C-alpha cells in the first residue's frame, strides 16, 4: 500500500471512550508506517498522548459550528498534510458530514459514509418504523419535541423508562418528575427530539460490522456485555455467535443498504427471550480494536473497502469465548504538547475564532497551578 495519510477523529479514551484511538491502534497493527492524523476537539483527548497514537494532531471546531467552519479548518489541515482518507467516528460528525461526499471528493479525500436517508432511518426517533419494516422488536417509544406531553407519554409507557438524547446520553428515570427533569436537560444540551423508551431488561448484545452500501455485511463481530458501567457502557464483553442475531442484523443492514461501519445494540428480553433492538450507531464502537487482536481487523478492512471496493480475503470470525476487559491507564502529556498542537503551521488556526475558543480553556488550566486539570 502506498504511503497514505488517514485522518481519524474521536480520540478520547476516558469514562465515555470514543472509537478513534482504537481505530488508530488497529490501523497501526496492519500498517505500522501509515501516516495518521488525529483530528480533535479538545487538547485533553487522551488518545493524543498515547504511545501508539497519531503522528500529528490538529484541533477542529465542534460539529455544532457547522459545515463552513468544519471545511475551513479541514482545508487548512489538508494544505499542510494532504489527507487521503477521513474516518469520522462521532455520531454528531457523521450527521454533519453525511451529505457532503461531493465536497470530500472535490478535495481528494475519501470517506465511507451512509446515505443521508439511511442515517435518518436508523435515528433513535425513527427506529420503530425501521424495526417494523424488518420485523424486529423495539421497546415502546415516544418522541417528544418539548416537555408538554410528558404526562401522556409516561401514561403510555409506564415506569421506569429511559430518556435519551438524539445523539448521546440516556437516563433511567422512575417517576414523572424525573422524566421532566431529564427531558429538559437533554433538550437544552442536544436539542429536540427527546426519546422516551420503555425499559427492557436482559443481557445486552452489541454487533459491530461494516456495510458495503449494497445491503451486505462485509464483516461482523457480536459480543455480550459482561461488565456494564453505571452509565451503561460496556467495560467488558465476550464474543458470541448466534445465527438468530446474525439474521436479525443482516435484515437491518439490508433494509438500510448501510454503507460504512455500524454498531447495533440489542437486549435479549428476559420476559420474551427474544432480541429487542435498542440502537444502531453509525460508526465503529469504542471496542473496535478488540477483534483486531483476535485477527479480525475491522479498521483495516474499512480502509481496504474504501481503497479497493472489497476486502482481499474474508475476515476470520472472532472465536466465541474470547473476551475483553477495559483497562484504563494514565498517559503522559506535557504543556509543550499544547504548543505542539498549535506549532508553526497551526498558528493561523489558533488565531481563528473557533479553534482559539477550544484551545484557550485548557491553556488556562495548565498555567494556573492551583487547577488539578479537571475540565467541564
Amino acid at each position, binding site marked *: 500500500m502506498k504511503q497514505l495519510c488517514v485522518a481519524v477523529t474521536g480520540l478520547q479514551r476516558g469514562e465515555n471512550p470514543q472509537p478513534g484511538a482504537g481505530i488508530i491502534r488497529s490501523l497501526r497493527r496492519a500498517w505500522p508506517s501509515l501516516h495518521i492524523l488525529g483530528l480533535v476537539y479538545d487538547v485533553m483527548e487522551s488518545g493524543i498522548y498515547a504511545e501508539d497514537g497519531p503522528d500529528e494532531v490538529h484541533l477542529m471546531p465542534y460539529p455544532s459550528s457547522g459545515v463552513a467552519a468544519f471545511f475551513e479548518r479541514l482545508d487548512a489541515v489538508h494544505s499542510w498534510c494532504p489527507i487521503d482518507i477521513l474516518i469520522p467516528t462521532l455520531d454528531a460528525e457523521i450527521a454533519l458530514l453525511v451529505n457532503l461526499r461531493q465536497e470530500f471528493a472535490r478535495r481528494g479525500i475519501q470517506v465511507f459514509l451512509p446515505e443521508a436517508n439511511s442515517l435518518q432511518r436508523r435515528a433513535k426517533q425513527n427506529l420503530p418504523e425501521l424495526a417494523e419494516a424488518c420485523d424486529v422488536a423495539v421497546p415502546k417509544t415516544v418522541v417528544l419535541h418539548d416537555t408538554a406531553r410528558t404526562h401522556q407519554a409516561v401514561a403510555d409507557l409506564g415506569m421506569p423508562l429511559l430518556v435519551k438524547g438524539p445523539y448521546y446520553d440516556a437516563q433511567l428515570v422512575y417517576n414523572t418528575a424525573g422524566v421532566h427533569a431529564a427531558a429538559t436537560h437533554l433538550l437544552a444540551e442536544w436539542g429536540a427530539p427527546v426519546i422516551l423508551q420503555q425499559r427492557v431488561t436482559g443481557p445486552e448484545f452489541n454487533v459491530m460490522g461494516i456495510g458495503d452500501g449494497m445491503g451486505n455485511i462485509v464483516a461482523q463481530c457480536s*459480543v*455480550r456485555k*459482561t461488565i456494564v458501567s453505571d452509565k451503561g457502557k460496556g467495560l467488558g*464483553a*465476550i464474543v458470541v*455467535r*448466534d445465527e438468530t442475531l446474525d439474521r436479525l442484523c443482516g435484515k437491518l443492514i439490508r433494509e438500510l443498504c448501510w454503507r460504512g461501519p455500524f454498531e447495533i445494540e440489542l437486549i*435479549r428480553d428476559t420476559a420474551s427471550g427474544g432480541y429487542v433492538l435498542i440502537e444502531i450507531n453509525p460508526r465503529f464502537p469504542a471496542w473496535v480494536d478488540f477483534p483486531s487482536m483476535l485477527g479480525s481487523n475491522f479498521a483495516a478492512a474499512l480502509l481496504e473497502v474504501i481503497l479497493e471496493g472489497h476486502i482481499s480475503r474474508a475476515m476470520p470470525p472472532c472465536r*466465541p*469465548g474470547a473476551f475483553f476487559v477495559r483497562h484504563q491507564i494514565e498517559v503522559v502529556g506535557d504543556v509543550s504538547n499544547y504548543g505542539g498542537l498549535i506549532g508553526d503551521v497551526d498558528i493561523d488556526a489558533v488565531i481563528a475564532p473557533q479553534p482559539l475558543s477550544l484551545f484557550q480553556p485548557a491553556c488556562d488550566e495548565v498555567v494556573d497551578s492551583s487547577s488539578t486539570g479537571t475540565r467541564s
Partner: protein
Amino acid sequence: MTSTLQNLRIDGRGIALDPVTGETFRLVGCATHLVRMLQDGATADTLLRHLLEGYDVDEATARRDLDTFLSRLEQLNWVEAAS
C-alpha cells in the same frame, strides 16, 4: 439433548461456554464428566449406572443427586424437561 447442550464447549478445567449467549459455567466434580456423557447421548439411566460403578454411593443417594443435577440442567435448557 438440546442444541444448547450440543453447542456447549467444555475446557479441561470444567469451564463450559455457551457460544450463543456468551455465558460461562463452572462444572464441579463429576459434573464435567456427566455433561460430556450427555453430549455423547447418554441417558439418565446411563448416568446413574456410571455413578454407582464409579463412586462409593448408594443408589438412593445417587438417584437423588442425579435428579437435582438434571433439574438444574433443565433450568439451563441443556436437557429437555423430563416427561
